[in-house]
């Protein structure tokens, strides 16, 4: 089927979407420099700033998390493509402060390369910036060698807790420690039931057979079972949750956060069914569902499917997760 999207000139897509995004959220964010997204009311200079980068086409991520309690600056790239170093270093320079900066990078080749160049430059310029790399997709690589593990929606809890710590006035090292604790204690698995199209080129990004689903979008479905027959909400939840609990070695009595991220055309309705099933399975295992959140946080255009992210929580992480924030895509009172 032909792509059916409301767009104008594909070459101007990212700029236009950012304009509309800033307009819709003018009380919270604004555009600065060359397509950088910054807070409408900057955080005071004595607090650590959070900066991130990432391809566009995943709205509301990542710019949707710029605002009080979360990010200070987001550097959106082209559709599905990390921004090159020049705009990123511009952002880092602009956000520079003595309190320091935490640079949140999702593990994707382009993002990491861009980030590495920028970290090198920042160091030589004497900018106080530390990097946290998120790589929690268990469908490739292992917990011991996570270099192949992609960064999926787990960036959200990392940004949330580190952002809350920064807002509280924690030091850069403290913010980094919180971010790392969150990162090391989470695991994500994705399932896809239908493909998506690249909004600028119209290319089909991925396809799934009519009666199938793909658990673990790593090409070989290293964890989770790969391509299989479409299953019920209950069964799918169980398959994914078990793989995640296993990977994270969650033990009886531990408290976890469960985040369900719809990636496109999968409905909230379905995600609620999945959460219900997750809760039942956890109960059977004696694992406590400390917090849960369901929505579309990091999308892949009109793709059908979702990401399930779980995280082992301690009391401090729960407090930071519960802390207020006021961003376009997440508001906590």
């Amino acid at each position, binding site marked *: 089927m032909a792509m059916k999207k409301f767009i104008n000139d594909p070459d101007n897509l990212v700029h236009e979407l950012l304009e509309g995004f800033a307009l819709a959220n003018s009380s919270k964010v604004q555009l600065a420099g060359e397509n950088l997204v910054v807070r409408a009311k900057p955080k005071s200079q004595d607090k650590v700033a959070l900066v991130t980068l990432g*391809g566009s086409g995943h709205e509301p991520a990542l710019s949707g998390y710029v605002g009080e309690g979360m990010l200070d600056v987001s550097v959106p*790239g*082209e559709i599905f*493509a*990390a*921004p*090159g*170093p*020049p*705009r990123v270093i511009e952002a880092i320079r602009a956000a520079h402060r003595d309190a320091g900066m935490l640079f949140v990078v999702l593990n994707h*080749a*382009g993002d990491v*390369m*861009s980030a*590495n*160049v920028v970290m*090198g430059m920042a160091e030589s310029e004497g900018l106080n910036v530390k990097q946290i790399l998120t790589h929690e997709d268990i469908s*490739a690589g292992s917990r011991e060698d996570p270099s192949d593990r992609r960064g999926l929606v787990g960036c959200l809890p990392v940004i949330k807790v580190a952002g809350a710590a920064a807002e509280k006035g924690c030091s850069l090292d403290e913010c980094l420690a919180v971010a790392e604790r969150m990162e090391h204690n989470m695991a994500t698995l994705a399932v896809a039931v239908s493909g998506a199209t690249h909004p600028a080129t119209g*290319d089909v990004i991925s396809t799934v057979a009519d009666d199938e689903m793909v658990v673990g979008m*790593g*090409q*070989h479905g290293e964890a989770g079972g790969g391509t299989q027959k479409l299953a019920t909400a209950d069964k799918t939840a169980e398959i994914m949750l078990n793989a995640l609990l296993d990977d994270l070695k969650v033990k009886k009595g531990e408290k976890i956060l469960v985040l369900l991220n719809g990636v496109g055309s999968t409905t909230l309705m379905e995600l609620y069914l999945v959460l219900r099933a997750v809760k039942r399975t956890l109960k059977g295992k004696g694992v406590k569902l400390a917090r849960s959140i369901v929505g579309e946080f990091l999308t892949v255009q009109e793709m059908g499917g979702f990401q399930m992210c779980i995280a082992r929580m301690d009391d401090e992480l729960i407090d930071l997760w519960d802390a207020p924030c006021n961003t376009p895509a997440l508001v906590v009172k």
Partner: protein
Amino acid sequence: MSATIGCNDFIRMLRAAIAQIEQNHETLSRLDSHGGDGDHGSTMRRAMACVEKAIAETGESPDLKALLHNVGWAVMGVDGGATGPLFGMLFMGMSAPAAGKADLDAAELAGVFEAGLASVRKNTKAQVGDKTLIDALAPAVETLRKEADAGADPTRALEAAAAAAQAGAAATKEMQARFGRAKNVKEKSIGNQDAGAASVSLIFRGFAKGVQSNG
């Protein structure tokens, strides 16, 4: 034939490289579509447009360091995966040893490219044999050094480097990708040249042609 390479020679080399990419971008995208995401040709084209823009912006009487730095920085600004940082680092890395030099002899040219390769290596652990652009770039740079040591002039050295890059790129056909997106398809990556290596080969072909057009 030139005994030394000046800034204007470099501009001619770069423009010839741009022409090579322009003529072959469809092939590059096709190569990237086996295992990659099929965008390498269009990304390289965008990168080359940035190179052209950087040349123009560097102005009338450019200095070589500034030219290479600006080109590298411009290429870096291309959003899109691995290409921007890798090729951007190549040119930016080349700029440092060019500082204060108006003309490069063959040994200095080799030094400039060695610095570029070193800078690329800072951004990837890929080695020769891993089916990446390193497979074309490393032999090309080594050849520049060998030719300079053997007393070749820059023109001859670049011609030899282009041949080495081409051979290196050709050799990637039989390799299994261990870096980049093509890594995910494992053994299925065997059978086609690596797109990035093919780009490097085209760029060196352009350099060799461009420097000759000054003959």
